[in-house]
């Protein structure tokens, strides 16, 4: 009898866990974009702020004018409003009719300054052109890598999520779906590196002339 109860608990637990993963990824898809750069591959991007502010990798939009589209949704022309090739980030503004397009909801951004190795790390992107594919593992390491340019070094999140071309510019998320970084394959010299969201926040704020946002923990 007792054994049965234990078994039931295990089944409930894995169902709840599966639901939790699904819920996080469904929410994440709404703020995920496909970045078309006129070439074969497509990169990923994250709607970072309302008003069509999209963050992606610099190398995804380095050549030519990029368009974005929502997963299973409409397409928008964009304007490149900032780029930093040294940390492989770029900011696009989707050209929308109004200031707040409800179809472009901003992703919840988490604080990446208090991450711990071992925490769940979730990635979503378009690896090898597979739109909206998801992956789940953990944060493998936290460190600094040298970069050219004024920073000298940049903080990075290492992860054992297997990233592939097409994940570039997509979000790395924590267990509650908060974006903790932007996946990139250029900085750091190996696979599975993300630029933490506090670095992205500073870049976005500087670009838009905002104060660096205080994100909720």
């Amino acid at each position, binding site marked *: 009898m007792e054994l049965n109860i234990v078994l039931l608990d295990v089944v409930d637990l894995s169902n709840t866990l599966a639901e939790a993963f699904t819920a996080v990824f469904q929410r994440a898809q709404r703020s995920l974009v496909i970045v078309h750069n006129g070439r074969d591959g497509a990169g990923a991007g994250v709607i970072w702020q309302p008003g069509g502010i999209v963050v992606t990798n610099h190398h995804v939009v380095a050549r030519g004018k990029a368009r974005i589209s929502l997963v299973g949704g409409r397409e928008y022309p964009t304007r490149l409003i900032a780029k930093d090739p040294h940390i492989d980030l770029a900011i696009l503004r989707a050209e929308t009719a109004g200031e707040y397009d409800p179809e472009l909801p901003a992703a919840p951004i988490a604080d990446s300054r208090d991450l711990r190795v*071992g925490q769940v790390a979730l990635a979503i992107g378009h690896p090898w052109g597979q739109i909206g594919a998801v992956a789940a593992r953990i944060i493998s390491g936290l460190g600094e890598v040298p970069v050219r340019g004024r920073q000298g070094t940049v903080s990075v999140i290492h992860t054992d999520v297997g990233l592939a071309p097409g994940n570039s510019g997509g979000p790395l998320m924590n267990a509650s779906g908060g974006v903790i970084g932007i996946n990139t394959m250029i900085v750091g010299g190996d696979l599975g590196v993300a630029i933490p969201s506090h670095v992205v926040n500073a870049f976005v704020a500087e670009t838009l002339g905002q104060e660096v946002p205080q994100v909720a923990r």
Partner: protein
Amino acid sequence: MTQSNGNNILTALSDSMAAAVEKGGAATVLVAGRRRIPASGIAYAPDLILTADHVIERDDDIPVVLPDGTELVAKLAGRDPGSDLAVLRLGRAVAAVAEPAPQEARIGQLVLALGRPSPDGIQASLGVISAVGGPVRTGRGGLLERYLRTDAVPYPGFSGGPLVDTAGRIVGLNTSGLARGASLAIPASLAWQVAETLAQHGSIRRGYLGVRSQPVAIPPAQQKALGRDQEAGLLLVGVEDGSPAEAGGLIVGDILTGIADQPVNDPDELLGRLSGEVVGRPTAVEVLRGGQPRTLMVTIGERK
């Protein structure tokens, strides 16, 4: 409602894995015993570090970096290339000592591979126990009774570091030195056992008998004579001149069925039984000769 509950459970999993990394990581040290990138080690006793043999290229002045950044120098206390394990002795005690998992690893169990190849901090990857295998000959003259296989990413420098469960307890020691192209883990219980011997004696003594043998079936009548159900033994097809086997009276045609009151069914078992305590000692070797069990006292030699 479901979503917030679900979210809690994912967050709880996340937090518990981070706590496991913290706990296991507190007993994971950097070991710079080779010219290439440093490897990892496990503080298995206050002044002893357990690591992989293949990452140690010298006997003295081996730099070890503790989780808090303290740099120490260790000495080789013992090594066993056969199981790819080595024990280093530190000049002083370290803060945290690893806790081995109370149970053997199970297939499907969530595990975290940990390593500290850089002073920047602990590194981890997530996986499951994919297989539990053994015994296997290691190709370095040894026999590993059991090994674990995992799909956790073996980052460079993870050899010698721990594989931990979700409570941060040590399930095994990771090494890429036992099988080419595959990352295996030596189960903690086995690794701890070898470590004890290495810390005390400096090496694992491997016995030498001096026979060539092949496995044969033992017919039911002879099993009855043995007094137990043992379906196989080792037929001696050669006894070397001047060997411990010859001195002890073993002859070609004997079927070897046991050593030191333990049954021997196949060559791997013979290799296993010949290591450790029995080396250099008169040891009871049980054979079937002409269908009748006999026990001979053989002083087991040492394989150099």
